[in-house]
């Protein structure tokens, strides 16, 4: 009997678990390092940040326009006296119209106490993240299967460790992209917004960064799930985009056009069903939304893995 077979079973299982976790981390680190060097990813992240900065710039222009009018009405001498202006500004009809226009009546309440940079960042991040995810992540696994790069790895670790590592690497990349977008927006406000509240805006942007990252994880699960179904990366991106459109069609049908219960039920199987929950400040709404989005993300990932685990590499 060799030393290995003499080892107690709990030690053996701890060793296997340790190796499994180590493999996932190694693949995730490598995935992040490889992915952020890809020109396509860099370009899409740059576009994402640019659009967020553009939205921030438009918000500054809008606040400026209504502030000038209010300054006159309130008899306040300058922008620098913003502490006095802010409560009036947030309650103004024009500002309320803007928030309602972007968020709708239900979410307007969640955004009521939030710095305007927080919710406008949230709107942009929640809108752009699914597209960013599908266009950067849906091809990642398919690409490695198509180029057969996966063969170098598949004889060294389990297919599951590899898929989870790819997913984790993409999740970290997504978080970095969102933090970059949020930071750009915050710097813009700091430089150009009169009476900018750095701490309050940073808190609001960070809160929405985390919320939209969790939202993005739901779509990342879809993207990596789809990516495991094909060996052609263009096909994977196309499939991801089609799935994304289908998800939004279901959401629109359930939310706006046809409030039929079946559409509502179907919408609950996609991250779009938890959009409002992720905006909420109420733990009773926020927590289930976070749990369900993460659970759905893993469900899509494992659904794809069910096919991937049996396929030829």
């Amino acid at each position, binding site marked *: 009997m060799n030393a290995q077979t003499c080892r107690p079973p709990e030690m053996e299982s701890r060793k*296997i678990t340790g*190796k499994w976790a180590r*493999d996932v981390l*190694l*693949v995730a680190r*490598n995935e992040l*390092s*490889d992915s952020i*060097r*890809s020109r396509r990813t860099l370009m899409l992240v740059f576009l994402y940040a640019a659009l967020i900065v553009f939205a921030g710039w438009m918000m500054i222009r809008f606040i400026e326009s209504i502030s000038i009018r209010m300054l006159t009405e309130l008899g306040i001498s300058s922008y620098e006296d913003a502490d006095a202006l802010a409560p009036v500004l947030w309650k103004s009809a024009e500002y309320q119209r803007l928030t309602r226009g972007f968020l709708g009546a239900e979410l307007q309440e969640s955004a009521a106490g939030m710095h305007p940079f927080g919710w406008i960042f949230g709107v942009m991040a929640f809108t752009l993240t699914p597209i960013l995810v599908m266009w950067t992540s849906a091809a990642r696994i398919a690409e*490695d299967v198509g*180029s*057969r*790069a*996966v*063969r*170098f*790895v*598949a*004889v*060294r*670790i*389990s*297919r599951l*460790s590899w898929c989870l590592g790819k997913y984790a690497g993409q999740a970290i990349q997504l978080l970095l992209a969102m933090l970059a977008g949020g930071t750009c927006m915050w710097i813009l406000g700091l430089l150009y917004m009169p009476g900018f509240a750095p701490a309050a805006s940073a808190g609001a942007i960070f809160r929405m960064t985390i919320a939209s990252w969790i939202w993005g994880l739901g779509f990342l699960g879809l993207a990596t799930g789809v990516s495991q179904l094909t060996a052609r990366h263009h096909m994977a991106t196309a499939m991801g985009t089609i799935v994304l459109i289908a998800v939004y069609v279901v959401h629109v049908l359930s939310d706006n056009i046809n409030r039929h219960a079946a559409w509502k039920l179907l919408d609950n199987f996609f991250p779009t069903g938890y959009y409002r929950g992720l905006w909420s400040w109420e733990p009773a709404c926020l927590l289930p939304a976070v749990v369900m989005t993460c659970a759905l993300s893993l469900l899509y990932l494992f659904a794809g893995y069910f096919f991937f685990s*049996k*396929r*030829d*590499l």
Partner: protein
Amino acid sequence: MKTALKLQGIVKRYGSNTALNRLDLIVPRGSIFGLVGSNGAGKTTAMSVGAGLLRHEAGLVSLLDEGPFNPGIHAGRVALLPQDARLPPHLRVEQVLVFYGRLQGIGGDSISEAVEKALAWTNLSGKRRAEVHELSHGMYRRLAIAQAFLGHPEFIMLDEPLSGLDPREQVRIREVILGKTQNQTILISSHQMSDIESLCTEVAFIEGGRLIRQDTMSRITSMHNTVSYIVSTGNAVDIDYFRSVLGQAEWWFEPRACALCVRFPDAMTVEEVNRKVIPAILQHGLELREVRQGVSLEDEYMKIVESHAPQKPASSRGF
């Protein structure tokens, strides 16, 4: 007998095309094993099935005598040089080796040492900071070979390892393969018979997804009882003349290699045969270029393949 890879009755189909047709193959532990076959014979598919990359329809696979590939058992003990696989294009050479080395199970400080060693013997030390997509074809192949040897795996599968390398690099890689440790097994698939002949201790011929012959290199090339005398092209060889020189032996001429071959009885030695035959060749007016013990692997392969080739149907129409 301990085996590194055992395939029994493996069937693998791609749609209607049968790539492996009840293939049997035994790769003994500690050997350098050559897999020879024409294009589409099933060499790469056989390796991929062995490595657990491809699912098979029927048959049994045993890797290192512990069943089919299971990452829990075989991870870190097996390595593969796939034929057409692409390494991650945006990673640096050093990063690629560190990544695969760590996945292979090399931990802590040993990884730097292992990577340095691999960079040195593949002559890539100067390219450690280069990204994979910046490498030339030869450098790329060397990097792909280097990753297969990281962490001293017990079983290394090399699919066409020497293709695309310049002669100097081929010599270097051959030395690495021959310098394997005793408990390592190397499976090489190649079209280059000379590579297989110079490196391998065992060889298997595969055609049409089936094993045609498997044996030790010395038996296949009849090292113990055959001598080939390579003469200049254009020389006319009178076999009957040589039969009179060494009557008890079997004589034949291989026109492809211009080789006059003699298989002699076990009671004789190579030296005795040479003492009689070489003067006879010179006396006969033939220009002797080389004396080789055994027959060439290429000739043996061609003979076996031709004998297994499907018979052409007789033409139904006469002229």
